[in-house]
Structures are given as C-alpha cells and as structure tokens.
C-alpha cells in the first residue's frame, strides 16, 4: 500500500498549514447546493476543512424593530416585516444549509464545521477567516454592491492573506450550454499570468492544483489590462476553473471582480497576496 506522503513533492510541503479551511458563505439567501458541492471538491483537492458560515444580517433585525417595517416578496407583495418570522426563517435556512454542508462533506470525506454569526454579511464571515484559508463567495447570491464585494475580496486577500473563490454567477450557462465545474473531473484550469512575478507564482499554484486534480492546465499569459479582452480570451478556452492573482491589474476597478466572475462562465479563484505553494500531490 502506498502511503500518500510517499508521492508528495518535497518542495510542496514546505509551507503546508496545519489547519486551513474552505470557508463558505451561507447567508440569508438560499445556499446553492452546487456552490457548496464545488467548495467541498476544492477542499478535497486542497486537503482543507470545510467550514460553513451563516450570517444573520443585523441590519434586518434593526429594520424589523422599526414600527413601519415591511418587505416586498419575490412575487411583488408588500407585507409586514416581523422579527419572529425573520428568526424562524433564518433558523430554517441555517438548518438547511448545515444539512447540505454535512452531505457535501460526507460525500467528499472531509472534516467540516458550521457556525451561525450575526452581523454584516460577508464581513462577519471574514472574521472567521484566517491566513491560507479559502473564502468562497457567491457574487450572484445577494444584492451586494460591487464595491462591497471588492472590499471584501481585498480584505480577504490583502489583510487576512486568504484566497477567494467566486462561485455562483456564471457557473451555469443558459440555453443548452450548461457547464458544471468539477475540479476532480477532467477539465481545463486556466491561470492568468500577467507577466509579473505574482502572475508567475499564480501559474505555479494553478499548475500544482491541475496536476493534483487531473485537469488540463493552460497558462494564459497576457499583458491585457482590459477586463473585456481577458474575458474574450477566457471564453475561447471554455475553462472549468480560472485562477488569477487577486492583485492583478484588471481588478483596479471595484466592479471588475464581479464582472470577471460573470465573464469567465466558471468559478474564479483569486489567489491571496502572500499565498505560497501549499498543494500536495496524491494519487487521484
């Protein structure tokens, strides 16, 4: 029997963290099982723990306390907004999210945890994030202003030194072009190399992940700083996963994070600024 460590690349082991996790946002909006499953696969590929974080938006609690509080349902009906009902719905959604987490983790054979926080969405979750974690965000799952998303990404990658995986929007095409991302299945992993040292490091991580997951690896070397140019190139490659440095020039504008996620048509992995090669090669 082959010990998994026998096949490890000694160079890859240098900075392997003792306990890093894939931190998945499961907020007040319906958690997308597909996103959670994808996060579980990523956790398997990165040998990380799967951690779910359900954030109860404090602003809604404040709103519910106002005398005239009301909400507009998805069907367009205006109805009173009540605290008791809000708490019941949160509890139900959190329970549902936890169930999906448990199933996804069990299927991937992962350790997992799940917690409920109350505070500001995304940012409350980031409080649970640590260096070398991967924070999974779903840009399409909330009315998150592009600025907020960009700030959250900057906080995660720049301040916490974690990576960010953007799922959701663009994961499912329309019409007849559904494409399910699967890092454990054969697909194409594209890494954006902006000809900088960080771009080069990004490619190295991507290559290691591709080998580990048995994916085809394509380094996309481009000096283009226009998001639309990059998006065009990505569409031609039809990748299953895109890895890009979080500090790349194309993210100079706040809303480009969300736009790239849409343009790629697949999950986008934003590499944290100080992330090292931490991948482990094992038998697929």
């Amino acid at each position, binding site marked *: 029997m082959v010990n998994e460590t026998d096949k490890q690349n000694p160079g890859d082991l240098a900075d392997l963290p003792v306990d890093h996790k894939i931190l998945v946002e499961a907020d*007040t*909006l319906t958690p997308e099982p597909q996103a959670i499953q994808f996060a579980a696969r990523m956790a398997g590929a990165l040998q990380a723990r799967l951690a779910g974080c359900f954030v109860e*938006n404090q*602003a*809604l609690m*404040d*709103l519910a*306390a*106002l*005398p*005239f*509080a*009301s*909400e*507009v*349902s*998805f*069907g*367009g*009906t*205006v109805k009173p*907004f009540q605290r008791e009902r*809000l708490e019941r*719905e*949160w509890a139900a*959604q959190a329970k549902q999210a936890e169930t999906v987490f448990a199933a996804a983790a069990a299927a991937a054979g992962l350790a997992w945890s799940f917690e409920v926080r109350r505070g500001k969405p995304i940012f409350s979750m980031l409080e649970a994030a640590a260096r070398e974690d991967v924070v999974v965000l779903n840009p399409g799952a*909330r*009315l998150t202003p592009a600025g907020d998303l960009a700030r959250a990404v900057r906080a995660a990658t720049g301040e916490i030194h974690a990576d960010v995986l953007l799922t959701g929007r663009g994961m499912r*095409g*329309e*019409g*007849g*072009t*559904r494409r*399910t991302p699967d890092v454990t299945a054969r697909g194409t992993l594209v890494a954006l190399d902006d000809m900088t040292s960080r771009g080069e490091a990004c490619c190295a991580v991507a290559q290691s992940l591709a080998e580990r997951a048995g994916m085809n690896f394509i380094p996309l070397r481009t000096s283009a700083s226009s998001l639309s140019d990059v998006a065009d190139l990505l*569409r*031609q490659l*039809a990748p299953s996963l895109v890895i890009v440095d979080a500090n790349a020039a194309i993210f100079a504008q706040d809303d480009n994070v969300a736009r790239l996620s849409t343009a790629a048509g697949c999950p986008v992995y934003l590499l944290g600024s100080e992330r090292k090669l931490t991948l482990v090669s094992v038998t697929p």
Partner: protein
Amino acid sequence: MSKPEPLSPDLLYSHCDISQFEFDTTADMPDALGLTGQERALEAIEFGVAMTRTGYNIFALGPSGAGKREAVSRFLEKIASSKPAPNDWAYVNNFASPNKPIVLRMGAGRAGLLSTGVNALVDDLKGAIPAILESEEYKKRLMSIDAEYSQHQGQAFETLRLRAEAKNITLLSTPSGFAFAPLREGEVMKPDEFNKMPEEERERIKNIIGELEQELARIFQHVPGWEKDRREQVRELNREVSENAVGRSIRDLAGLFEGNEPVRTWLDTLEADLVENIGLFTLDGEEEAALQAQSGPLGMGSVDLFRRYQVNVIVDNRAGQTREPENGNTDSDFIGGGAPVIIEEHPTFTNLIGRIEHVSQMGALLTDFGLIKAGALHRANGGYLLLDANRVLREPLAWDALKRALRTKRIALETPGDYLSLVSTVSLEPDTIPLDVKVILFGDRMLYYLLADADPEFGDLFKVAADFDDQIDRDNESDLLYAGLVATICRKEDLLHLTPAALGRVIEESARYAEDAEKLTLEMEPMADLIREADLYARQDAASTIDASHVQKAVDARLSRNDRLRERSLETITRDIIMIDTEGEVVGQVNGLSVLSLGQASFGRPSRISARVRMGGGHLVDIEREVDLGGPLHSKGVMILSGFLSAHFATSIPLSLSASLVFEQSYGGIDGDSASAAELIALLSSLSKLPVAQHFAITGSINQFGQVQAIGGVNDKIEGFFDICARRGLTGDQGVLIPHANVKHLMLRRDVVDAVERGMFDIFSVETIEEAVELMMGREAGYRNERGVFPDGSVFERVEVQLTKFAQTQRAFNAGDREKR
C-alpha cells in the same frame, strides 16, 4: 318369401385394388393439396377470399384432424404471394400529448427506413449540436441576451437603489424578498434613533419607503415577463442555430416520404421538438441521470434520453420479397411482396389486439409509445388471420375483442383492465389502426352451429361457412388422391414411404374408420398416426419402406393397446357373469348389439334384451326410460314399436297389452334406436310364445311399417358378437342380422371374414322385420292374405291371436267390473 341367404364373404370387406398403383412407393407420388375432395369448401373459401365486403369472414367447419387449417393456409399462401404487401405501421411519440401516441402508415418496408433514418438523424445531431452550442458565435449571442436581461433587471433595481440611497434609504435582502431601511451614517437606523426623530420626519421616511416599496413591487411584477422574454430569445437563438443542422437532415428524410402527409407532419413536429430540446444533446452524465430519473420509461434502461425520438415499428412487411426503394419511388407506390398469412396459435386478448407493456420504476408501472407491441391483427392486417375458434372462445375477452375489431374495422389497443373499465389510471391512448383483414376461423360443426344459434353477431361477421366434408367417395381416383395425401405426410414428417400394398391397407383402414366400405375418411390425423406407427415398426425391421405387414402390425398393436376393456367385457360374458346365450332358443329373449366407446377404445358388445307381456292398457314400458337410463332416441324407438304393434295387429280392437322391455344387466345409459329391431323380435316372441334362436344377434332400427333401417358401428357390433361366439367355440349356426342398408358399410376384421368363408359364421342382411323373424324364430312371420288374416301357425297369426285374447279378456274384465259396481 324365401329365407334370406347369408352375405357372401366378398361383401364383408372391400379390398383396395393395388394393381392400380403404378408406383414403387409413395415417394413417387406428388404432393396433394389438403383440399382433395373438398370442392364445396374450396369454393366457399375462394368466394370468401374474393369477397371484400364487410362481414365476409370465413368459418371453416368440419371434423377435427381433417387438416383444414393446413389445407387452407397452403391455399391462402398461394393467393397471398401474388398480392402486394400491405402497409407498415409504426407508433411514434406525440410530442404534444405523450399519452396519445401517433400511428403512422407507410408503404411496405418503409417503416424501417423511417426508423433508421430518425436514429441516424439523432446520432448526427449528437455530434453537431454540441459543436454549434460551443461555437464562439453562439456564446457571444447568448451572453448578449443574458447581458440584456441582466441589464434590464439590474438597471431597474439599480435605479431604484440609487433613488433610495439619494433619500438615505438602503435596499436589503430578506429571506423571502427585499426591504427598505432608513440609513444613518451608512448604517440601518436603530429603533431608538428612529423613535427620537420628530413625528413629521418619521412620517416622511415612512412615506418614502412606502413609495419605494410600491415601485419595487412593480419591478418584481415585471420580472417574470423579462424572464419569459429572455427564454424566448434563447429559444429563438437555439432555433436559429440548430435549424440548419436539424432541418437539413429532416428534409432529406422527409423526401423519402413524399405524399405521406402524416409522416411529414410528424417529421415537422419532430424537428420542432429537437430544436426546442437541443439542451438534451449537451447534458453531462449527472444531468442525464437526473433527467432520466424524472422521465419514466423514456429514460428506461441505459441512459437514452433520445428514446422520445425513436420509431416503434410494430408491423414491418419488409421481409421476404421487399425491394429497396428506387429513384423516383415514393412512399405511396412502394410495393413489397405478398400479403401476410398469420396463424395465431395462442389467441389471447393481447396476442390478438396487441398490448401496451409497462415497466416498473420506483414502484410505479410506467409506459410509453415504445412499449406498444403488435398483435396478430396488426401483423395480419391487409392479409389473412387463421384462428382456432375453440381457443379464441376459451380465452377471456378474446372473442369479444376480435368481433369488435371486425365490426369497427379498427384495432384499438387497450389493456384488459381498460377494456372492462376496471381501472381508471391514466394510460396510453394510442391512435387506432384501420383494419382490413380476412379472418378464417376453424372449428367443428357443433361449435359453428352453437355460435350461429347463440351469438347474434356471429352471422354478421362470419358470413361464409366453408363446410369440410369428413369423407370422400372411394374409387380408383380417390385412392390415387389418397396416395398423394399419404406421400405428403411422409415427406413432411420424414417418414418412410409406403409400398402399394401398405398404401392399400391404409386405404382399407381409412374406409373402416369412415365406417363405410364405399368411402374414405378425410380426417387425416388418425391415418397419419397409423402411418407414423407403421414407420416405427418398419424402422425396427430395418426396412427402407413401410410394407403392408407394418401397417397391419400398427393396426393390431393399436387394438392391443386399447384392448383391456374389450377383454374384460368378453371375459364377463364367457364366464357367464353377464348372461349372453349363443346357443339354444328362448322365448322373449334376443341378443342385441351395442357399441362401447371409451377414449380411443371402441368395441361392440352383445346385450340380452328381454320382453314380458300381459293384458293391459296398451302401454309398452321401457324400463330403461323409467329409471332414466334410456336416452330420448331409445325411448323413441320403443314408442315406434308400439305404433308398429297397434297398426299391424288386431287393428279393429283396442290394443290391450302391457309389455316391459329391458336391457338385461345394463347398468349404464343407453341411447339410440339401433336395438329397436331386437326389442320388437323379443316382443313378438313373448306375444307368440315362440322361442328365439340365441345363436343370432340382431342390430337395426325399426320404423312403424316394420322396415329395418341402417344403424352405426355395424362392424364393431358384428365383431363383438363374433368374439363371444369364437371364445365359446363357433358352431356354424351363429351369425348376426344387420340392416340391408348397412352392407355397404362392412369392413370387417380378417378373422371374421375368414370364419364366414369357412361357413362357421354368418351375416345376414334384412330389410323387414318379417325376414328377421323368420331367421331368428325359424318360422314364417306371415303376411295377411286377401281376407286380411295371417296364415295359420305363422308368428304374426299367433301374435294377433294373443292380442285379441288380451282385448277380449280386457273387455270381460271391464264388464265384470261394471256389474260389480
């Protein structure tokens, strides 16, 4: 009148003249069609086949084992081969209403073309569609649609959000929608802060939020419409990009079905469905499995979501002489070869009209158009369907279903439950199929007459009766025809062929089976059995042909196998357990003859018939009838005796007789009037007090004029009495009296004929009771002279005297009785 002479031996057995056979074995004979000697039936079948009007189906009636079905099917195959092949039929998916599958009619051999064409089309699209949908152009256009939609929706939300923010209001997501909240320093205002605000300010914020909510509600109400528009645009895009690929292939296929509008219409709907569902061609494994689980039988078995596009060919007349379509050849004029002649051996309800099969999936029984299976009516449509009437009637619902199909001239596929309205679950309602079939039912005569009598629809649906005779006249020509039939049997079953002598024995046995020396049976199955058994003995002898000795051995062996009952019967008589005298004379006692038929065994057995008379009221008491052992025909025979007596004797005075007649030691039922001659002799003997010779037995029925009439089973009856006599030792006096009309039926066993030739046994034919009386009572029966009286000393004179005495005594008895009163 002179005493009748016994029949000469040559009248007892009609040998086959084998000198007429100019062949060495039957191998030299050509095959004979089974309709030999069945000209009437053949004419009826020809008429029924030629008549195309409704209801002219055929019922071929006749004895079983006569080879009716084989003969008719061979005859029909000749006719059918010259006719054009009928249409092919196929069921296809009804994309609009999947529970109502569409039936398509195509020229012979064309359904297969459609099926393979559609399969090839789908296979092509499996490669072409993903390539189209992965193309850069498609992706760009799709993104453009998505962007437009997102922009439309996003813009509305964003505008509203900006308007709200301008008024220091924020838009928040809630678990079930959205809500507006007032802001203070970029955060949602706390309740305390809000409550500290002046009333006017609180009211103002409340009104602003109310307006924003109304605006948001309006946006939400528009979302479904935007989404619908987007889907329609995507659909239109798909249609546009896939139409080329789908349309081109379908046009090629549709070209093969020029003039067949239903097929072309279905191909149009197929094209539309393919365009609508091009997503099916790009599914990955998980999606396919998920869709398959939802799609019931359409996804049954291996992953095949394209089953909805398959063509379920239920009738394919391509087999045999079908030629491939030629250039310019269209669907409507394509002709294959031969109308079908279908024989359904197991005519159950579903085997006749077809069935809708189901598959079990997650505990539910599901079905679709691909699970429709053809029945015999489908396969025979445009041709001929041969059925055994008895089997059809035995199968539940089959007869009604067959009649309904013939009456409505359509095949409606239903489950038995639906047919009986027992279930109300949603099932398939396939299109019905027009029916043009000639049904030929086979059955015996009794069944035909029963149906004609009991089923009012039968006469309307089966107007042609092909009545198969069970016998043909025996002459040299028919002997040769018979040789052909035998040769056919030998070839068909790979039996050794027969020498002329063996064939002669078979023909003689055929006459014996027909119980008529001048006829041959057309029930070929018993004759085929005889040849098969003779074949066994011939092979055991390592012979290359079947000889007469092998046939004889087969006849003897068959008798021996069935001989136990006959032997027991003989034994009970020879051991005097059943009392039958074969010597001496007894008053009022006659040896009658009967036939016992049990399974394959059939043999004659003598019965003692006795009569006792006394003065009475003119009644003959049939003891068998009194105890319900006599059948109606027997009772009729006894009553005829009463008529004969009252009309023949002492006609001017009342018949003052009381007589009883009985079959001694008979413990089973008796029917038929073949013993009435014996009963009359017993009565006359009892009345005349003259004895009857016990070395004779007699069989024959009597009419009121004293004429002796023909009976059945004459050979068995004679042989039955002969066997008893032979066991006890032939005296040379013994013999049997038979009706003259039965002489032509004599085909007696070799040992009986031998005994007659040696003068040890006699067979007399009689035409009147007088002849029988003279033979059996040894004295003149008597005819009235010109004065109307019987000769002195004659049997009839003594009978009349006795009857007159009874009448006088009766009168005196009645007078004394009156005086006493």
